[in-house]
């Protein structure tokens, strides 16, 4: 689907970094090498909960090649956090946003809280020496009682994991919108079910890594595989007790993140501390095992869902109680709890919603952000239960979704203002493309079809970052450089932002280069999380390009003897509208501006301030993003009743993309989302026993291969906002929100067993089949 009013937007442009990535030229953090560089390693706790009595590093320090061994005593002793909102508000706004305690330290100060917690770090001339040194550090622990069970965390006498957190509650939420009891009283059917979801590990192919170096003036530069350089800068400045401007965070090529490289479970802190002490560059790259054991997971949740519905399928009320297993630290916990509640009802018209959410601490690796942050888990519950309701009422699953779907112009119970909404089209098109009706009328044994819908935000307004900036500068030859804070982690942000800039300026896509994600150079941007890159970064880039164009037009107007308002830019030229013979190349205008007149370089600046309310954790009310994406997907599965193995053959996805900047890139995001969602639905779980994660390799974890992957048909639904024609919605996360439930519903359709616990493994299917057969 190509938009005719655009020249570069809407085109399947190849990636800006394509050549670098297919030739091996793209350099990631672990590919970087600096003179004198040392290699760092982290000593981790073997105990789930223990007090550190003493650390003796003297033997390690004496080992030849070891340049530094550090412990908590060598840190500034200042904690940092991932939801560190209040510190970054201007003084007059103090108190407008709640504060969450910062509890994470680069190295444990007094106690360790999970198996894998950072205890000490070593820098040595080579990796093998660093590893050897770890063995020589003697740590005396006093073991403390531990708890791995979120259901027991709030019980009387449960081990206290953080002193400040009463009953181990990290955060809690209680919202009550509309008239829930009245809603239930009007219902003809009420269902109550419990659903659970698993700890999923992100497994970007690139393990987290960084190179940190302090210069002689005490300034830190760090090349980090982070998704969010500005947030990391704040965290580093806090943990190292340095001004933010003395910390420069740069992202080299980043090998994927899918949410995990937002959280502060990266080696940046330890590498920076080691570099400060040794005065040498220090590299730390996680091993794959560390990726599985010492980085955040998707929050496992226990979801109790009660839904009331009328005979005709109209939803009347929902009550949902969620217990999220937060693991040892805060990370993005309060945000995930907010999003789980906020997206409970977003997709359907539902005025009466009650939500209680608790995120508790346990002695496990922390949970954090992951693609579809907080929305995937409750969506699995809501969409599974909706199919159960539809069956009881004898209504088609597609029909019950169409009946309740949000419409453009709706305001949800929690005050989300849905300006554009292509959900109805997404449902209808995905059903039509899969021949939903026909397949339901003539079922094939052990083959099933299931539908699910979802919704997501295009960047959430949560301090500290509620705006995005961009700069566009012209080179003498008419080429353009965009400076953006949007972090390219593989999702294609550099490419689509270049398309937006080229389109606005009337230059070729090839004329635009992108410098992204360097806190010293690029304007502030939250980072690549919460799906804000295209919408926030795109609007900022467009504004900056518009500003540059305005400057061009002012110079060109003099040269063409025309009014700036009568000019237009296209094909690398500036034309007088309606007089195609009156034109001048953009390059000529740039040179004229530099060489004549006042010598003004053409440099545009622009920004986007979230047209939204700041997240209110307490009330849950407010419109937190400028645009909501919607999606529907239909899964077609086959279940082998002998082995219990379910196979997804095809997923057909309708996604409301708003203005689609690059359909090829969007398809790639949708396919990747389906792939990851399928993993979460069928295969993936970090299995833990006695606090130890057992499956710490790709093979044991079961990351699926090309052999397991389904066909994906992507349907782009381009909604249009008459008040804002340029509305490029998120495309990288929303699709995954609906994938596990679509697959689960299809499995039920195939063999008649309803699995309420993710992942839906062959064992669970076989067990359910056996019970069904009794």
């Amino acid at each position: 689907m190509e938009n005719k009013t655009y020249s570069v937007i809407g085109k399947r442009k190849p990636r800006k970094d394509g050549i670098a990535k297919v030739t091996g030229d793209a350099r990631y953090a672990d590919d970087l090498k600096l003179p004198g560089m040392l290699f760092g390693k982290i000593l981790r706790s073997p105990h789930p909960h223990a007090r550190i009595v003493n650390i003796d590093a003297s033997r390690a320090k004496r080992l030849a090649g070891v340049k530094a061994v550090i412990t908590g005593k060598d840190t500034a002793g200042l904690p940092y956090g991932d939801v560190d909102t209040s510190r970054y508000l201007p003084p007059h706004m103090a108190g407008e946003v709640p504060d969450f305690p910062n509890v994470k330290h680069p190295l444990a100060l007094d106690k360790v809280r999970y198996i894998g917690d950072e205890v000490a770090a070593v820098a040595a001339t080579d990796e093998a020496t660093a590893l050897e040194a770890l063995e020589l550090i003697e740590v005396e622990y006093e073991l403390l009682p531990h708890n791995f069970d979120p259901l027991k965390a709030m019980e009387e006498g449960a081990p206290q994991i953080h002193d400040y957190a009463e009953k181990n509650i990290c955060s809690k939420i209680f919202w009550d919108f509309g008239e829930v009891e009245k809603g239930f009283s009007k219902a003809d059917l009420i269902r109550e079910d419990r659903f659970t979801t698993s700890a999923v590990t992100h497994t970007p192919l690139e393990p987290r890594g960084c190179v940190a170096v302090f210069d002689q003036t005490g300034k830190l530069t760090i090349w980090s595989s982070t998704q969010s350089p500005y947030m990391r800068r704040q965290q580093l400045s806090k943990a190292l007790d340095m001004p933010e401007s003395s910390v420069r965070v740069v992202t080299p090529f980043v090998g994927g993140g899918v949410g995990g490289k937002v959280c502060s479970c990266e080696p940046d802190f330890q590498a920076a501390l080691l570099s400060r002490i040794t005065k040498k560059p220090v590299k730390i790259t996680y091993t794959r095992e560390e990726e599985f054991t010492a980085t955040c997971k998707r929050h496992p949740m226990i979801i109790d869902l009660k839904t009331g519905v009328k005979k005709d399928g109209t939803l009347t009320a929902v009550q949902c109680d969620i217990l999220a297993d937060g693991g040892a630290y805060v990370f993005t916990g309060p945000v995930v709890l907010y999003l789980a509640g906020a997206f409970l009802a977003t997709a359907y018209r539902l005025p009466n919603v009650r939500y209680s959410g608790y995120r508790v601490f346990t002695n496990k690796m922390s949970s954090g952000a992951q693609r579809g942050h907080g929305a995937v888990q409750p969506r699995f519950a809501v969409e599974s239960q909706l199919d159960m309701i539809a069956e009881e009422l004898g209504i088609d699953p597609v029909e019950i979704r169409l009946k309740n779907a949000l419409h453009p112009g709706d305001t949800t119970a929690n005050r989300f203002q849905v300006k554009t909404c292509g959900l109805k089209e997404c449902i209808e098109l995905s059903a039509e493309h899969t021949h939903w009706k026909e397949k339901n009328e003539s079922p094939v044994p052990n083959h099933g079809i299931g539908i699910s819908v979802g919704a997501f935000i295009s960047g959430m307004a949560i301090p500290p970052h509620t705006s995005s900036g961009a700069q566009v500068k012209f080179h003498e030859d008419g080429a353009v450089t965009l400076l953006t804070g949007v972090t390219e982690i593989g999702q294609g942000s550099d490419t689509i932002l270049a398309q937006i800039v080229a389109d606005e300026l009337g230059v070729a896509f090839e004329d635009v280069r992108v410098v992204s994600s360097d806190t010293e150079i690029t304007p502030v941007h939250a980072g690549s999380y919460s799906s804000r890159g295209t919408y926030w970064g795109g609007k900022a880039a467009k504004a900056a390009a518009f500003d540059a164009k305005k400057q061009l037009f002012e110079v060109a107007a003099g040269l063409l003897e025309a009014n700036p308002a009568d000019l237009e830019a296209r094909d690398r030229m500036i034309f007088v509208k309606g007089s195609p013979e009156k034109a001048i190349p953009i390059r000529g205008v740039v040179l004229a501006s530099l060489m004549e007149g006042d010598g003004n370089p053409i440099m545009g600046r622009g920004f986007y301030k979230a047209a939204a309310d700041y997240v209110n954790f307490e009330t849950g009310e407010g419109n937190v993003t400028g645009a909501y994406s919607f999606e529907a997907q239909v899964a077609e599965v086959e279940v082998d009743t002998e082995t219990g193995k379910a196979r997804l053959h095809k997923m057909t996805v309708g996604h409301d993309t708003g203005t689609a900047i690059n359909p090829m890139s969007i398809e790639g995001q949708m396919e990747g989302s389906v792939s990851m969602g399928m993993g979460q639905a069928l295969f993936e779980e970090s299995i833990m026993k006695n606090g130890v994660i057992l499956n710490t390799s790709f093979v044991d974890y079961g990351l699926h291969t090309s052999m397991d992957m389904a066909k994906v048909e992507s349907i782009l639904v381009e909604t249009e906002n008459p008040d804002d024609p340029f509305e490029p919605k998120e495309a990288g996360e929303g699709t995954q929100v609906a994938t596990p439930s679509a697959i689960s519903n299809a499995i039920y359709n195939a063999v008649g067993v309803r699995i309420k616990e993710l992942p839906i493994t062959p064992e669970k299917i076989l067990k359910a089949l056996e019970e069904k057969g009794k």
Partner: protein
Amino acid sequence: MDNHIIELKVNGEGYEVSVDSYRTLLEVLREDLGLTGSKEGCGMGACGACAVLLDNVVVLACLTLALSVEGKEITTVEGLAKGEELSPLQQSFIDHGAVQCGFCTPGMLISSTALLMKNFHPDEHQIQMALSGNLCRCTGYVKIVEAVKAASEH
């Protein structure tokens, strides 16, 4: 320490390197020869990001000792293009959106290059089989398989 001077032939160029007997081909490529295109995604032969060609056969450089490959033709992702001219597979990966974060891309290209050397017109299943040792989190493999198919029809 058991140290040897060996000659490696990588991407058509000869290199004399001094290696300890325990060092892997991946370490030597990345650290000694500066060929960082081959990636370490797991270090235990599960992800395929380190795949290289050894006499036109795919091997995992993280599981291969550098000493064992002396005298053999090693091809890494850096050796797939002829000067500035990309191989049809490389071009196809770009044209079909088969690249996202790019970390698996070198291994994917090596495995598909090996496939197309022995099977000029693989079907989709054969491509999936050939790539089954290369993990990817970003793409869901869809556009990678499409890119290989398109290159084979080139």
